[in-house]
């Protein structure tokens, strides 16, 4: 195999679980942190939280949606990883 083939056919596939673990962390935490965008004029789910900082329902609903969104992104990545690393499904790892 050439160096290029080693990278694409051996190293990258074998590194997929770790790459996905990193993607998973980055994606999920970014969704959560994006609620802070409101302070930079970016809107988002932080808006109702900031506007109604003394109202619990606002916070619970906006926060809940943010959590669900983060988990949904996490789930999509998890499914993508299962699809891209089929050999992991048979082993118990």
């Amino acid at each position: 195999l050439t160096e290029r083939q080693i990278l694409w056919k051996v190293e990258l596939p074998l590194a997929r679980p770790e790459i996905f673990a990193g993607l998973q962390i980055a994606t999920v935490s970014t969704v959560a942190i994006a609620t802070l965008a409101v302070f930079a004029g970016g809107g988002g789910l932080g808006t109702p939280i900031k506007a109604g900082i003394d109202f619990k329902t606002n916070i619970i609903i906006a926060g809940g949606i943010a959590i669900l969104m983060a988990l949904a992104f996490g789930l999509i990545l998890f499914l993508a990883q299962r699809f891209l690393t089929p050999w992991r499904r048979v082993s118990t790892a």
Partner: protein
Amino acid sequence: MIGALPPPTLASIEGAIEFIFTPQSSNVTGGKAVGGFEQVVELTLNQLELTLLALALSLLVALPIGLYLGHRGTGELFAITIGNLGRAIPELALIAFIAAAIGVGVLNLTIALAVLGIPPILANTFVGIHQVDRATVDAARGIGMTEFEILRKVEIPLAIPTIFAGIRGATIAIVATATIAPLAGVLTLGDFILNQNVYGNNGVLAGAIVVALLALMFEFSLAALQRLLTSQGLKSA
């Protein structure tokens, strides 16, 4: 609680640095100067205190559980799920909720920030201890070490890099998030950032710069501590 912020424009670095060292006039305080070295130091110390308290609480909760579960090899789903769920919680919502439901103050904020710190420490401690080669552990048991000795002399030294990765991640997250503590009544460096109408763009940038420096300081200190705690035998390997 906070006024409407105009979309921030980047003030000059120069203005921000001036803000850090000398008090500036403000439009809304009736001639009272804002910023300056004294206030920056005061807010930095507040942020430092909050960070250290939250970090201590996180360590106190997450380390024992992680060590115990990792050593036993049970509760993998629990540790990993906590690790993943914890990252999904928007800290702004959590802090706002705690402030609205329980009340403001240092103690409540410490708990809110610990929620941010516990998951990475717990997950990494579990994984670090759990992934230690079972044959090594069996060998340690074979030469007569007690379970506690195995944990302290074999598993923890071998798991130090992973455990510290968790602690460093948690610390950076806590020190950075302590910036929004003013929303729950504790004045940290975020005061400069959240109250742009009082401190001006210079204050916003100054706050951001000092928070970033504080985070870097924590990162370097923890890296040094990690080197210090890494077993001599593992360093040469």
